């Protein structure tokens, strides 16, 4: 089936709030996209319609879908996200979506481990919702730098780690994963976060022969597979576009020795 991608020029912002020292949650009325969005897919936002700066759209994972509402969770990084952070409920955004290939859920697996680092929490909301919809039990392992940056995940069954020990277990999310894997029978891992974390998670899963899916980031222009601007190297040594072949990949398809592209 062809996936339906839409451009909604005037999606109203319903609410927009700060949820940690660096993260914000923005909810958009997007009935046409809410119906088809899958976990791991993303929206491509034009942040300043009509002005040439910022010029390109910015990609953001779909954080959650509730009724007609689609939300994203984001961090202010540069000019685009700074402008976005100033937008108010009632204002509108030009949205393209839902884009990309999301997470595959294998209902045969016993444990479903959602491994998130920092803003990598973003796609886990909808993934957890979908798992629950299939009567499966998501378990979130969520690592952040400190309690100030912790976003309340809103997912039951969550373990937290922080680099400075100010919340949860002190250390990296990979140590939560290693602990949890010791008592797993037949797990599947779904990971999103910075490249070094994904590389470490993929390494652990490969060693233990556990299926692992990773959501990657890349600079994007078109978002639909037309420009070949967003590529990463796969394990065959070929370049694949993240926007349409990903952003979620089987971790074995990726060449983890390449330099991180972001």
């Amino acid at each position: 089936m062809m996936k339906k991608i839409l451009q909604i020029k005037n999606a109203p912002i319903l609410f927009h709030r700060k949820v940690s020292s660096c993260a914000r949650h923005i909810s958009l009325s997007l009935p046409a996209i809410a119906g088809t969005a899958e976990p791991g897919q993303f929206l491509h936002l034009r942040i300043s319609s009509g002005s040439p700066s910022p010029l390109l759209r910015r990609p953001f994972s779909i954080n959650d879908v509730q009724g007609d509402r689609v939300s994203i969770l984001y961090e202010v990084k540069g000019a685009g996200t700074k402008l976005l952070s100033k937008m108010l409920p009632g204002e509108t955004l030009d949205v393209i979506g839902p884009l990309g290939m999301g997470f595959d859920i294998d209902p045969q697996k016993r444990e479903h481990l959602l491994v998130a680092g920092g803003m990598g929490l973003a796609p886990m909301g909808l993934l957890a919702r979908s798992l629950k919809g299939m009567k499966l039990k998501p378990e979130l392992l969520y690592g952040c730098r400190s309690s100030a940056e912790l976003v309340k995940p809103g997912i039951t069954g969550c373990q937290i780690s922080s680099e400075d020990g100010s919340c949860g277990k002190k250390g990296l999310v990979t140590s939560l994963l290693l602990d949890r894997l010791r008592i797993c029978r037949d797990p599947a891992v779904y990971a999103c976060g910075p490249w070094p974390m994904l590389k470490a998670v993929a390494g652990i899963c490969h060693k233990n022969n556990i299926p692992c899916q990773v959501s990657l980031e890349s600079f994007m222009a078109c978002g639909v597979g037309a420009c070949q601007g967003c590529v990463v190297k796969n394990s065959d040594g070929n370049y694949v576009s993240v926007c349409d072949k990903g952003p979620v990949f089987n971790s074995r398809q990726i060449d983890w020795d390449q330099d991180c592209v972001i």
Partner: protein
Amino acid sequence: MKKVKTIDLRVSIAGLELKNPVIAASGTFGYGAEYSGLAEPGDFGAIITKTVTLEPRPGNRPPRICETSCGMLNSIGLANVGFAVFREDKLPALIKKNTVIIANIAGNTIEEYVELAARLNKISDIPALELNISCPNVKLGGIAFGTDPASAAALTKAVRRAYKKTLIVKLSPNVSDIAGIARAVESSGADALSLINTLYGMAVDIKKQRPVLGNITGGLSGPAIKPVALYNLYKVHHSVKIPLIGLGGIMDHRDALEFMITGAAAVQIGTANFVNPSAVKDILSGLAGYCRENDITRIKNLTGILKC
């Protein structure tokens, strides 16, 4: 009630008839199917496909794109599927769409360009060819032919012999005298010119103290290059008689009008497709509106009416 006047949007480029003057620029609209649901090939007067080479090319190492002030850099490096896959897998779907297909080609040598041109000459569904002699992102071929009038002329002549349909040559702004190149290409048998391709550019990540692009340098496109593109168009318009297709930073119908008034018979949009896939529709309705307001019934009458 006053009837809304319909505007004749058709244009003709050296005998190539287009239903409207807005063309998708090579490398920005893929092979036509990627934007399904957002923009259709049939919206455009023509689609220029991604540069194709004889053999597939992997392209340059990432990162390949980076935003700069009012523009973007790319160093894709002519990543493409190669001619065989282009013809077998990509073309059949595009042919079914209601648009004119223009194939854009590049090679490492004159012989490779000629071989591609000869193969395309036999494909009846493709009535025109755009020669890419202006890609700044590959070492061999591409821009090597586009920066020297003698090489550009030799290549055009050789391709002309092998190709009987509409031959368009795409020029680079990365030269000291674009009019000289344009004249050389015209006298070697080109039917029309597209201008401009991207400008050489670069960006540095000050945190890493490294170039942002994996290829170090890239090509600049988008609104930032529009004045440069218009200037080049203006210069070439006064130097050759063959029709010109203008591009470089066109985002809306006002930009498109600037190019047409300066001398473009048609325009291409590139970066605009990324920012706003419905740019083609927005531009066409804006052009029609402008014609109505200014009592112009045929859009082709706008070409080159610049008063200086």
